[in-house]
């Protein structure tokens, strides 16, 4: 996709790309968008290309996972956003399609997260879910833009960007805190953990804060982004425009279901390891270092701060979103965002008030006594009798069995006096088995047909090369007769200096952009870039020619990245999906 676009733009800088994109015609714009959605979507983790993410993220140490889920996958979203900002003429169905992909990604991610038995895999799948929510929001915004609905564009895009930021904060906190659990206990297996809140109370509080945030509950920051996204969906539903209203209504139901499932998933993620009694006597958790808590506290304070004062997000969001042709009615619509913070503060105030009242009352009564948990008369309870994470999620897993396809091993003991029984529920990502594997096998079957050509005869290979070249020339000639040339064909008279300088510029911009995704896209930022580019154009017409070489490089990189993810997935998922072995096993 970059190749085409850069070809159109005649440069790899964002400025050149943005300047050229305005003239892109309808069909080409849609093609660019679809390719960008596929490419950047893979990076971000949109279904069904998400399968690499849950295999890759959990194997890193906690802090690295925090960065990967919090920031690195957002570069995919950033790339997609850039392309969408450049292509204002995209039709509404593109938005509806992105909304649908986002809804499916969100539901699939949270359902898989719900079924995971490993804390870090659960968190990784929840990142897939949140990427889905972000894509859904971008979809609504695009629907709004295509319909000339200013408010929808603003709320949807601002909601998506706010969620990008918020997810980075609370998912970072979850991975740090969850990583601390793995560090202290040596395992992330939820069904073996329990009662950790007594061993590491501060870490438990941190995880709980992030849990409240990720479930979009007041008073934390998760609600801020989702509130805007819901507003946008309601707005789209109210447009009474067939496609948009239907898409928005489906999006609303999906987002609400995602919210309910997220609540289930994260009560499991917090409740099972931290609450109750220790489930496995062989695990000896040691308290974690104070300095680790300090790092988490910064994120927790940021989460709470944004939750209580969401208005701080409005100016940067408006700068970014309003820089497009839209955004005039935005500040008014966002005004009630302040109220979301006020409600959060009210909840905290009410909780504090009740707590103090409760303590005052208790002070006048006989002191509270303690005893064992009520076991309904059973006198010999053991910690093993507690509900496990698998058990907690099981009725939902069963409800969504059609999507999750849980495999049960073991079951209810049948004898009259059973000694022991065990039940395990395995949930593997069906997209790998049902989407990717068939697709790859189809490619391999097709490739096998070509095998007769590969006989080691150099002449045949040369013939292929010549044929391909000829085809390229024919196609290109046809285009020149048609409209504007697709690829600029000035002969590259390369100045080594400029040629070498450009890629670094691009790299720097990329770096700066991913750091401040909100800022970089801002209108304030864009003109400056363009200006710099414009200034540079005079002296760099030659340099621009040099860039005729760039597309190939970029494509090569993209190709390499794609390969990398596939291999990585095969390797990391190996324990379960046994990349090579299974492939052979499934051979027809």
């Amino acid at each position, binding site marked *: 996709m970059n190749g085409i676009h850069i070809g159109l733009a005649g440069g790899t800088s964002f400025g050149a790309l943005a300047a050229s994109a305005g003239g892109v015609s309808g069909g080409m714009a849609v093609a660019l968008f679809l390719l960008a959605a596929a490419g950047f979507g893979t990076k971000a983790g949109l279904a069904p290309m998400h399968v690499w993410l849950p295999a890759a993220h959990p194997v890193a140490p906690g802090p690295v996972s925090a960065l990967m889920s919090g920031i690195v996958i957002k570069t995919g979203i950033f790339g997609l956003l850039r392309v969408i900002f450049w292509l204002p003429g995209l039709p509404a169905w593109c938005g509806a399609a992105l909304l649908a992909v986002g809804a499916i990604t969100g539901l699939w991610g949270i359902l898989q997260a719900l079924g995971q038995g490993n804390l870090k895999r659960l968190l990784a799948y929840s990142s897939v879910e949140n990427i889905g929510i972000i894509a859904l929001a971008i979809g609504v915004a695009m629907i709004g833009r295509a319909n000339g609905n200013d408010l929808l564009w603003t709320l949807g895009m601002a909601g998506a960007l706010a969620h990008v930021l918020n997810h980075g904060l609370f998912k970072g906190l979850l991975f740090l805190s969850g990583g601390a659990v793995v560090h202290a206990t040596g395992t992330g297996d939820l069904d073996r953990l329990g009662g950790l809140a007594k061993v590491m*109370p501060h870490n438990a509080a941190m995880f709980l804060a992030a849990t409240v945030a990720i479930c979009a509950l007041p008073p934390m920051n998760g609600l801020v982004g989702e*509130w805007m996204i819901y507003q946008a969906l309601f707005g789209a539903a109210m447009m009474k425009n067939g496609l948009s209203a239907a898409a928005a209504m489906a999006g609303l139901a999906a987002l609400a279901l995602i919210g309910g499932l997220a609540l289930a998933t994260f009560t499991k993620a917090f409740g099972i390891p931290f609450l109750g009694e220790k489930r496995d006597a062989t695990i000896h958790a040691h308290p974690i270092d104070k300095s680790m808590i300090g790092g988490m506290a910064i994120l927790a304070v940021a989460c709470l701060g944004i939750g209580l004062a969401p208005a701080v997000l409005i100016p940067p969001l408006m700068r970014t979103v309003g820089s497009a042709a839209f955004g005039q009615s935005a500040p008014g619509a966002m005004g009630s965002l302040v109220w979301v913070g006020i409600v959060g503060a009210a909840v905290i105030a009410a909780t504090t008030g009740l707590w103090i009242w409760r303590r005052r009352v208790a002070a006048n*009564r006989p002191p509270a006594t303690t005893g064992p948990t009520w*076991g309904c008369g059973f006198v010999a309870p053991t910690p093993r009798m507690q509900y496990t994470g698998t058990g907690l999620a099981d009725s939902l897993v069963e409800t969504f069995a059609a999507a999750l396809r849980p495999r049960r091993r073991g079951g209810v003991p049948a004898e009259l006096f059973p000694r022991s029984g065990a039940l395990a529920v395995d949930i593997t990502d069906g997209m790998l088995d049902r989407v990717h594997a068939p697709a790859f096998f189809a490619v391999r079957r097709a490739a096998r047909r070509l095998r007769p050509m590969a006989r080691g005869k150099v002449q045949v290979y040369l013939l292929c090369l010549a044929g391909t070249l000829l085809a390229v020339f024919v196609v290109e000639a046809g285009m020149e007769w048609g409209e504007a040339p697709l690829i600029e064909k000035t002969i590259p008279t390369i100045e080594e200096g400029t040629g070498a300088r450009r890629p670094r510029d691009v790299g720097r911009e990329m770096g700066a952009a991913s750091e401040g995704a909100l800022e970089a896209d801002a209108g304030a930022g864009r003109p400056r870039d363009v200006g710099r580019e414009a200034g540079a154009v005079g002296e760099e017409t030659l340099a621009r020619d040099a860039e005729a070489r760039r597309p190939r490089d970029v494509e090569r990189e993209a190709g390499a990245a794609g390969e990398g993810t596939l291999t990585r997935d095969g390797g990391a998922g190996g324990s379960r999906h046994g990349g090579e072995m299974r492939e052979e096993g499934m051979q027809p």
Partner: protein
Amino acid sequence: MIARVLHILLDLALIVALPPMLIAVIWKVKAWFGGRDGPGWMQPYRDLRKLWNKSAVYSRTTTWVFRAGPVVNLAALGTAALLVPISGTAAVAGFPGDLIVVAYLLALGKMATVLAALDTGSSFEGMGAAREITFGAMAEPTLFVALAALAIATGQLRLGAMLGPVLAAAWPGMMPASLLIAAALFIVMLTECSRIPVDDPTTHLELTMVHEVMVLDHGGPELAMATFAAALKLLLLGSILLHVAMPLAPWPMKVVALPLLAAVVGVVESTMARLRLYRVPLLLGSALVLAGLAALLVTMGGKA
């Protein structure tokens, strides 16, 4: 202006005083169906006072999460109550988009209750928690689609405005959709408030409970808060339902209708059995279909 202030004061009074009365009505109706006198009208209030005056017994397994559970739950529902119109058409406070916040305040209360249940380490309470999050997740889309249908019909995103005069004005064209929404909200209310056919609040067998088993280890003031919060949730969802179902009625009738709605809940509880647990998602699925139909009707109808 004065009328507005009076409505706010009346709403606050209703929030504090009415919830236990709704429970009393349900008890009375069930007793009448069973041929008994039942407990007195003031019994829920007396129960709350009794519990509030007790001192607590805590399980040794529990942490601060257990003690915070009922407090956060009641605080969340109390805050939500300020955003829901009860007597008048305007709530104590409101802003565009407050319906989203109300839904998530209910979810916050639910999370607090579920975590407190898990904190006891009891297998029964874990079971209740598992059921609560299952039904909660399934009820959420219905609530939002029903609210979206109302938003489409009225063009409003503030609960007070959405349930107010605009809805009354749209009533002639909107009646079928409104009744569908009311039916969907009724099922959501029965689910969220743990009533039959989703949960049996009077069962004596822990294995069949949902809400009651989650508060099994709560005692004294904590149990009082949990009980009051459950009744308050009935008041909130009931108020929204009544505003949808009878927008033309003057406000005193809507207040009177609240105990009548509780009586209907009592009739349902007396005449139906609890559904098998694995049937409940089907019930909630049908509620979602009802709400979806309503949304379709208002979208196609073009009424505003």
